């Protein structure tokens, strides 16, 4: 690999000791930067023989604490040097990429060829990598029409703890390493891709992935809809997602959130307390406009009104540059998860009671409540609390804990886990489910060297 790609200098180790969450963990003992699958394979073979714990990481832009080492003496494998597009197959409409490519880089290169992705990346997709997102079940741009990061996967290449290289999906054939053969995920045998997707890097290290691509849209439409209350907004949001009309369907769930992101709306229109923003992409303008009309009809039925397109356009064209401007409100404590759409009003009511109980506003905190239509017909619930005054950290931690407890009790399911959700999910996991997960870990990683302690599997 060359010594220039290996470092155990103290300052280097510190720079890899955190992700974008408030969580802290252990510094790695060494950081390595491979540039090929073969190098990753050699590293894992070496680690396996010498029982060295390893963790594979992308850009560590995650907000869940997943890519932070949990044990001592970890070799961290930084995959961001593996950032090439390996092939674009226009015949079967897939792109095969190295795991360390950023979503933004991939989107740009595809656009030049006339293609788009379905799921475009998490909201941190400027830096976020494909490998990181499919390991952590990311949700984000394009999820309303296409599902989350893992839903766009056709096949993966993963290095096992032994150093062996596994290729999944239609690449199962003996000696197969041709990208052309990666065109179908569900075929011939069990879906081995699914075993590794969302594994938080516990079963192997993903080095490449094949994703679905689509032609660039020739018609687009945007609409923002205002509602006086969350019940009406939720009904409209639900029906639009049920009808599969939107490429992206977003909700700002209370007046505070609107004021934080688009204050002009509340000064322009009276009695707007929730906004639903719709982004439509279609094969031509007429189809896009027709979908928009259908959305408008649904909105009117549920008591909403059209208020322009500023937010939906800004949201879509600022794709990965939305959350950063909120850093000024303080450091973020998020509670991202999935839930049935119908449960949104109860969630928001619960949050508001927590906000009152802990006097969040009075204590200088701020928050944003948003939701995104996901996949077939559910939503992500994103309530993020911002803490400016670090002397109030105790209050924040209490409120944050209580919110996560409430969210998971009120039908919520985290899409990613990490340190953010692990304590909450492990005390609720079904024993049989967990037993099978542990057995898989034992088979695939007998010496427990890959991302040890995550999910407390061994």
């Amino acid at each position, binding site marked *: 690999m060359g010594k*220039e790609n290996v470092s155990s*200098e*103290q*300052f*280097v180790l*510190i*720079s*890899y000791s*955190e992700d*974008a969450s408030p969580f802290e963990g252990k510094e790695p003992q060494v*950081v390595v*930067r491979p540039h090929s699958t073969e190098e990753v394979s050699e590293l894992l073979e070496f680690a396996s023989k010498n029982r060295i714990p390893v963790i594979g990481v992308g*850009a*560590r832009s995650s907000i869940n604490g997943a890519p932070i080492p949990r044990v001592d003496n970890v070799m961290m494998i*930084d995959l961001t*040097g593996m950032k090439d597009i390996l092939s674009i197959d226009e015949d079967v409409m897939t792109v095969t990429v190295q795991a360390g*490519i*950023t*979503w*933004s*880089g*991939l989107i*740009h290169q595809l656009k030049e060829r006339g293609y788009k992705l379905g799921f475009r990346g998490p909201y*941190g*997709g*400027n*830096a*976020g*990598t494909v490998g990181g997102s499919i390991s952590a079940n990311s949700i984000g741009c394009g999820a309303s029409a296409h599902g989350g990061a893992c839903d766009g996967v056709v096949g993966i290449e993963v290095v096992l703890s032994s150093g062996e290289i596994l290729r999944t999906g239609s690449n199962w054939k003996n000696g197969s390493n041709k990208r052309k053969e990666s065109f179908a995920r569900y075929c011939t045998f069990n879906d081995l891709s699914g075993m590794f997707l969302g594994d938080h890097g516990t079963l192997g290290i993903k080095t490449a992935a094949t994703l679905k691509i689509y032609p660039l849209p020739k018609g687009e439409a945007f609409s923002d809809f205002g509602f*006086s209350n969350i019940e009406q907004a939720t009904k409209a949001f639900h029906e639009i997602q049920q009808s599969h009309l939107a490429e992206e369907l977003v909700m700002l769930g209370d007046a505070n959130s609107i004021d934080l992101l*688009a*204050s*002009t*709306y509340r*000064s*322009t*229109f009276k*009695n707007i307390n929730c906004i639903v923003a719709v982004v439509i992409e279609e094969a031509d303008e007429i189809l896009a406009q027709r979908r928009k009309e259908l959305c408008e009809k649904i909105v*009117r039925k549920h*008591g909403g*009104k*059209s*208020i*322009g*397109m*500023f937010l939906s356009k*800004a949201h879509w*064209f*600022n*794709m*990965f*540059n939305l*959350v*950063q*401007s909120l*850093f*000024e409100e303080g*450091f*973020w404590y998020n509670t991202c998860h999935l839930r049935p759409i119908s449960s949104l009003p109860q969630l928001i009511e619960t949050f508001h009671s927590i906000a009152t109980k802990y006097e969040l506003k009075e204590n200088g905190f701020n928050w944003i409540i948003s939701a995104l239509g996901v996949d077939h017909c559910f939503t992500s619930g994103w309530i993020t609390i911002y803490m400016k005054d*670090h002397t109030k950290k105790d209050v924040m931690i209490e409120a944050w804990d209580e919110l996560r407890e409430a969210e998971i009790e009120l039908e919520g399911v985290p899409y990613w886990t990490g340190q953010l959700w692990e304590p909450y999910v492990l005390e609720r996991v079904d024993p049989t489910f967990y037993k099978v997960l542990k057995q898989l870990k034992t088979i695939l990683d007998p010496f427990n060297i890959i991302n040890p302690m995550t999910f407390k599997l061994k």
Partner: protein
Amino acid sequence: MVKFSEVEKHSDLIQICGKCGDCATSGTQLSTAKRHVSEPCPVKNVLGFEAYDARGRILILKRILENNFKIDDGFLNWAYTCTECGSCRETCLAIEGGIDTPLLMDALRQDLVKNNYRLKKHELILESIRKHHNPYNEPLKERFAFLDAAKNYFDVKNADYILYIGCTESYRQQNIALATIELLEHLGINFAILEEENCCGSILRRYGYEEEFKELAKSNLTYLNKQTTKKIIFPCAGCLRTFKLDYQDYNSTDLQFFHLTEFLEEFFKTHPYNFKLQNHKKIGYHDPCHLGRHVGVYEAPRTLLKLLENSTFIELDALRNYSHCCGAGGGVKSSNPDLAVEIAKNRNAEALQKAIDILVSACPFCERNLADGIPENANGFMVVDIAEILNKTIQKELSTEISHLGVKSEICKQYMKFLGQYPEIFSDLIPGSDMDFAIYDSFDDFEEEKTMDAFHVLRKEEGVEIIPGKADDADLELALSKEAIAKLIQTKSKEDYATRFGDFYNDPSFEEGWIDFLLHKRTKTLIDMGYGKFAEAAGILEDEEDAL
């Protein structure tokens, strides 16, 4: 115990970082601003590890403030690997203007010096400046030995301008100094050089020698203030940045500092000249960090290069405030010369990928370092300074005055005239607001960023100023089709104009006309500046029907 009192002063900046990683590994960014950000840290792009980009540096500084850190040689070397180019700051959206990591690195270097972690090579440079008034350990008396001894360049008393040559052009890049002098002479500019010109001290500040820097800054300003001429032209972007920004705390005078390109752009507005290359060449421009990101001069050099006949001007992908550094800044050229050259190789590769023949810069450090990084198989690719190429290609003075420097289309001229007649269109904006108007021949051209013509409207205390070319630091860019403009200039009132404007945005049509916008500042900031009211008036926040 080591005290990091200077870093401590900026702990708020360290705390505000959300660790999103945009400054670290970002691919090309997607946004309405068409941010040309791609892998912004030139040092990380060479050395690879997170520690070298802004997020990594901030994490390390955070640990330093927790007093849980051992200073060793590796760390000291790391502290001087940042070129302080500011690309990370431009990329960062956490606060308006971005988290200023170069400021944090300056603070760290000051703390290191205060705590006696002084590197020998830096001490030698300090000694050279004290002894010879230059960092190159060259004799003071040789400073202007390259000048034509038969001419008197030092008659400052009778000059309109002072030409501040700088140490690098005096001792290393004399080709730039000579080209600048020859060009100014050709143009008939009445300038003079300071006989006792001194080092500006930039390198001292970059290395953390703050006390020594202050002393030098005050002495230089005292000397300059004694001169009757108050207008100073710098061909060196580094010196300009130092005088204009770093001396700010000590400069309460009426001294005016210009970069050569700023001066020439103004001059050619009223004294148009012809410039012609003998053989057709593809010309690219490398934005020096000191001139572009730090001082905000982007348009002047581009305007000048576009005057070159028999050439095609090609923009690099990473340009203007998102330009990649050449690698020489922040003292890296002298502290880590190999690293500097590797960074230059990356920048040259960007130009070669675009098949550029001549990469032009406007800073001697950039020219030197980029030239050091030209690969062997570059097929005649060359790096030159803007003074050199202008001096080599200048032809003759044109007799007719250019009324709209750079504006080509009639529709653009009509639109500029129209907006000048209706300044009330901009009445909601706060003074200082500056917006670009870019006119496009087609939507495809907009997608490919091929502007037909551009101007910007600067809101002043009273009224507006309409200026050809894009602003150096526009709040946003309005993109308009020529069809939309043809209809907008028919309107007779602000209300009518706003309504039509909103129609073209809300209901765009390739045939009838369309308007779009690219935001260069954060939405919240723009709303506060009055653009929100403009959007309301334009019906961009449209109330279709009151259904409630």
